Each structure stands twice: as C-alpha cells, then as structure tokens.
C-alpha cells in the first residue's frame, strides 16, 4: 500500500504542472480575447498571387 505515497506525489505534481500551464497561458494573453480567433479561423487562405 505504500505505493499510495508515490501516487499522491504524482497526482500533486501533475496538478501543479497543469496549474503552471494555465498561468503561462494566462500571462501570455491567450485568454484576453475570446472572440476574434473564433471568427478569424473561418477566413480562407489567401490565394497565391499570380
């Protein structure tokens, strides 16, 4: 049953990694604009200039 110490350790580390990822995304400004990217993705690629 001492495996439980290892498992708890793992779960906390994973949780902290996700929290760090969320902080990074937040500070990177990924959550600042929730609207525009959703509209931008619908644009077609530019036609190659001939």
């Amino acid at each position: 049953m001492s495996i439980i110490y290892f498992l708890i350790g793992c779960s906390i580390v994973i949780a902290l990694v996700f929290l760090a990822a969320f902080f990074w995304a937040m500070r990177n400004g990924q959550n600042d604009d929730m609207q525009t990217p959703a509209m931008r993705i619908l644009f077609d690629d530019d036609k190659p200039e001939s």
Partner: protein
Amino acid sequence: MAAGTLTETSCYHCGTEITNKKYIYDDKAFCCAGCQSVYQVLSVNNLCDYYRYNDTPGQTKSNQPQQFAYLDEERITADLIDYKDETLTVITFYIPGIHCSSCIWLLEHLHKLNAGVVHSRIDFLKKQVSVTFKHHEISLRQLVVLLASIGYEPLISLQDVVKEKQGSVNRQLIQKIAVAGLCMGNVMLFSFPEYFGLSEFEQQYRSLFGWLNLAFAFPATFYCSREFFTSAWSGLKNKLVNLDAPLALIIAVLFCRTVFEITTQTGAGFSDTLTGLIFLLLMGRWVKQRTYYQLSFERDYRSYFPVAVTVLKNKEEKCVAISELSIGDRVFIRNNEILPADGILMQGEGFFDFSFVTGESEPVKKVLGEIVYAGGRQVGEAVELEIIKPVSQSYLTSLWNNETFINKKSILTFNDSIAKYFSLITFIIAISAAAFWVYSSDIAKAWASFTAVLIVACPCVLSLSTPFTLSAVLSIFDKNRFYLKNTDAVEQLAQTDTIVFDKTGTITAPDALNISFTGTLSYEDKVMVASLARNSAHPLSREIIKWLMTDNLRHVYNFKEVVGKGLSGYVNNRFILMGSASFVPSAKSFNKNTSSVHLEVDGDYKGYFTVHHQWRDGLGSLFKSLSGWGLHLLSGDNEADKGNLAMFFPKNIFFRQSPQAKLNYIKDLQLQNHKVMMCGDGLNDAGALKQSDFGIAITDNINNFSPACDAVLQGESLKLLPKFISLAREAMKTIKISFAIASAYNLVGVYFAVQGTLSPLTAAVLMPLSTVTILSFTTLSTKYFARKNQLTLKK
C-alpha cells in the same frame, strides 16, 4: 458627373438606400463618392474578398475631411505609441467602425495595402487594432490616412480609450480562482477517507491526509484570500465594518483551528470548508466584475476635445497639443473642428454649434471680436481665434474641475449596512456559547463551540447572492441596451425616487427631424427644390429631399451655397432661393426665431419648411407610467416646446438652463432628501449627471462620446426605463429574501455549533447546500421578475 435617377437600390459598400445621385463603378452602385473610393482602393489591391464574407460590410464614410497633421509632431504622438525602436513602431487604435468579420479580415490584411505595415491584429470586442509598422516606410500620419481611406477612421483622443489597462486586475483574480480551485479539489479528494471512515489498517494514512490538507490550506489562505484581509483591515481603519470583515475573521478562524487540530492530532481540521469557501467567494468576486469593453463610464471633456489644434505663428501653421496652448495664441479652426479653449473671434464668420455643450439646437452666429466658449464646433468657413484662457480654465473644463465632483459619493450598500449587525449577533452567540461551556468547566467544548459558531454563521451566501443576482440583472439590462457601470449601480437605481430629464438629445431623437411645409407646393416645385437641395451636403437639405420624395431630378445651373445661410440656383430657367430668413429677401417679415427654411422662386415667396425635433418613441406612455414619480425637465434650449411638454411636467419645467444651473438644481433636490436620477446626453449635462445619485447618459450610438455617468442607455430603450427601475427594485427584494433563507440555514448550523458537536462533515455539507439553494433561488426569481416586466431575455 451626370445627374443620376432616383432608384431604390442600396449601396454595394455600406447598404444605405440610395436616395441621391447614384455613383456607378464596376457595375456596382454606391451611395456616395466616399463609399465608391473605398471600393476603388480595395479593388485595385485585390481585396474584394472583403465583400464576400458579409453583404455590404462597409460604413457610410463621413464627408468631413479630418486633419491629421498633428500626427507628424513627435511630441504629441509619443503618448499614443505603445512601442518604438529603430525600425518598428507598434500602436493600438480604437476604431469604432469595427463591427463584422469582414472588418477583421480587411484590417488584418493592411500589409497588402501598404508594404510598410508588418502586422496588424484585431481585438473584436474591444474594437481595437494593434498595428506594427516600419516607420521609415510609412509614417503614423500616413497609416491613419490609410485607415481612414478604407473607412476605418481611428478615434484618437487625449483620454485614450486604448490606454486603460483593464485586464490586469481581472487576470490576477482568475489566477487566484485557479489556485483556489486546485486547493479545493485536492482537499476534497484527501478528505473523502475521513468522511467515509478509515479502517484500522488505514489509520496510518490519517495524519498524511491531514498534513496534505494543511499544506493546501496555506496557499488558499495566504495567496487567494489576501484581498479579504486587506479590505477588512482598511475598513476597520476607517471605523467601518464591511462585509469582508466577518469573512476575513471566518477564514482566519478556520485556518487557525485547522492548524491546531492537525498539529495536535486532535481532529481532521476544516481544510475542506476553508478552501471551498475561498473558492466560492472568489467566484462571487469574479461575477461581480463585469466590464463592457466598448463603453467607458469615466470620460470627460478630454475625450471630446481634439488632440491638437492648428496654431498660426509668424504666418506659419503649426500643430500644437491642446495642453500646450497658451493665452494669446492664434488658433485656426476649420469647418467641423472643435474650439478647445475660450477665444475671441479675430477673422472669418463664426457659426458655432454648441448643441453638445449647451443643448441649444441652432448654431450660434458670432461676429468679430466676440468671445466664443470652448466646446463649440465651427460650421462653415475656417476662422481664426485668439485664445484668452488656457484649456484647463475655460468655460466647460472649469466646470468639470469643479471641486464638488472630487468628493466621491459614498454609497452604503445593503451588504455593508447589514455586515455590522451580522458580525455583532454572531459574536454574541459565539461568546455566550463559550461562556456557557466555561461555566460548565468544559474548556475543550468552549473552544470548539466558539470557533464553530463563527464558522457556520458565515455570511458567504450573502456575499454570493448579491453579485449573482445583480450580475443577472445587469445581463438582462444589457440585452435591453441599458449598460450599467457596475453591480452596485443597480442598488442606486433601485433607490431613486425623482427623475430629471434633459430635452435635446435625451427625449428628442437628435437625428430624426420632423419637417412640415407651410404654403403650397406643386409637383413641379417639389422637383425643383429637390434638384437644388441635392447639391448640398447640409443635413437639412438631405432631410428635405427625403421629405419631398420626388424623382426625375433636373440639372441645376449656377448653384451656390452660402454656408450657414442657404442655397440658390437655376432649375428649368427659374431662379430658386432657399434658406434662412436673412438669406431669402421676401421672407423679411417672418420671425427669425424658429428654425425654418424659406423658399422663393423667381422672386415669389412660396412658404417655408419648419423643422421640429422628433420626440422619441413611446415618450407619452413613458411619462404616463412614471406619473407617480417626481418628474423634472431642465433644458438648455429655448421655450419653443413648452406647450407640448407642460402636459407631462406640470410644475417642474425650466428652459435656458446653464450646465451650472442644472447641477445646482440637482443639488437642491438632494438637499430635500430626494434620490435623484438624471437622464442627459451632452457635455452640458455632465455636471448634473455626476452630481446626481444615478446618472444615465442617453446615446444613439454607444461608440460615440458620452459623458461620465453610472449607466449608458440607448435612445430606443428609453421607453423601458420604468421597467428597468422596477426590475432593480425587485432584485433588491430578491437579495433580502435570499438573506432570510441563508439565515435559516445558519440557525441549523448554529444549533450544532453551540453544543460543540459540529463535525467537519456537517460544515462541509451545509455550506455548499445553502449556496446551491440561494443561487438557484436568485437565478429563478430574477428570470421571473424579468418576464413579469416584459424585458427580453434574448439578444
């Protein structure tokens, strides 16, 4: 260009119905030269995909040519730029015209229009575009001119909307919520074995789980809930008990008891309740923070005034930032420019439109040597003025810097007023419970019951139900085009009992004009008048064409327009003269007060057009349903409409009110213990709006300038005002009922707590249960009240 025919097609660019001359280019019809020129620019640059994503995505281009010369002055632009190095400049513009996906597409393809633009990115909700460009290849001024040429003119003002950093506070709060959520989730997980009971074999883990829970309680207490402690402390320093004080106390008690129980191995502690409580409280804070990116409630004259004006020095034109204007400077004001400081007219004929400043609807004629107050917009030829007062001490701005406004209204919310009694009662119960157990010489139970009472009597529900109810109300208002500054404003709205209205632009629609003609007009006359008026860009001419509804227009010879006076020209070899009474010779005998357009054909007087302001929709029923209220009307305009309005405002109706008089009037009402709501629109109401308990700025385009206020209301929703007020009042009722429900739950908790038998499990179940009950109650009742008031719940 040849005279076109009138048809009912709409403009390919902006979708406006074409009433005037039609412009044809590339087999496509345009309403004006502006729209056509935008199309030309786009088609030359292969950017016609713009029209593919949306039909008629453009906006009618304003005819007013803007002066951007000041953008070449580095001292002025330094404040506007975000970042600059040797080759690149980054600047963020606020562009009110952004409204659809085509706008995003076009503005992010700016690099195709000019190679100097490296990158441009839009934030759609904030209507901002951030442009990175090489300033050696395209100057800032050229960039702005380029944006204007494709119909996206940025709004550049001194009080730059872009520069307000709204995001950072919100970001910190979300980070705190994330940490609190992580702590809560993990603590719940580690607490489950405790809830279900541990077998003999598992006892060794009990202390492990306890220590882990304690570890998660640390960041939750010291990082996530720091704000509650600081806010409670600053409240206590000012001898005020706000709602954060009992909350901070509970967090502290929970934390101390948890530390004590776990270090002494006497119990499982209250980590689960603690982290859950902090998470919920932060959620409440988050819901309360609602920002409208497109709106600003703190604007003052600086966002109305231009950034710079042209100053004549040694016969040379130079752009000067208005803060650097000094007495004696000669300024050059072109058509449609705003005078930023009081001045004396030195050259040219001044026709100043003060409608936004004083509420007066007619432009005022100024002769040489006359003083012109700041805020007037020149209509007509360019004029020169000498500045006699610096900007900060001019007529309008000195009103703004008035000391009365610096004293912020302190509002005692329901929550804060109840927090004091709540804390007091909780303390009395906790101390008497502890005293009882001390008396029975059971010290352990005394300590347990004292802390337990403080824990269960948590006013957290109160601090959740208020933001949730009020933000639900806010979003209902939002859907009905009524935008409140923050959730506290709902409470202020609910308390008002007196309404003061402004006239021009508030209860009249500023753009819609009612036209009537006194005299007789044959069909032939109508055609001639329309043909003549078509050549003029004056708003009255356009309204008259719309009213005439004729087609078959003729060519006009010898067309002349005297700005501010009228038009003349030959149609079918007949000489037509139309304009003000001083312009039309045969109209001399008529009074010159009312805004009328006189008409003369070949020397014969035909009659005159009268222009009335159009009242807003549903005004009659609005005033009828507000009849129980104290209604007042303060207008800066003349008494022409008194007869029409006396019906609704039997006593309190005043005309020719200066901005200062309006402010004083509101102050007097407040001294009589009235809670005053002010509805106004222009700068002339700004003082009154700020002085009032609840100021509503009424506007027809929320992107336009509106003075500082508590709420912005779209003109078309003015008729819903009584419903907004009653919904706000019912929301306050909902909050009070939810407080009663929460108290019932607390009594159950206190029953266990005073006996010293509150288990962590009871506390952990009781709190979320009461929270869920309250939140579903507030949500359902807000929806019910909104339906009852027939307010729409959908966009």
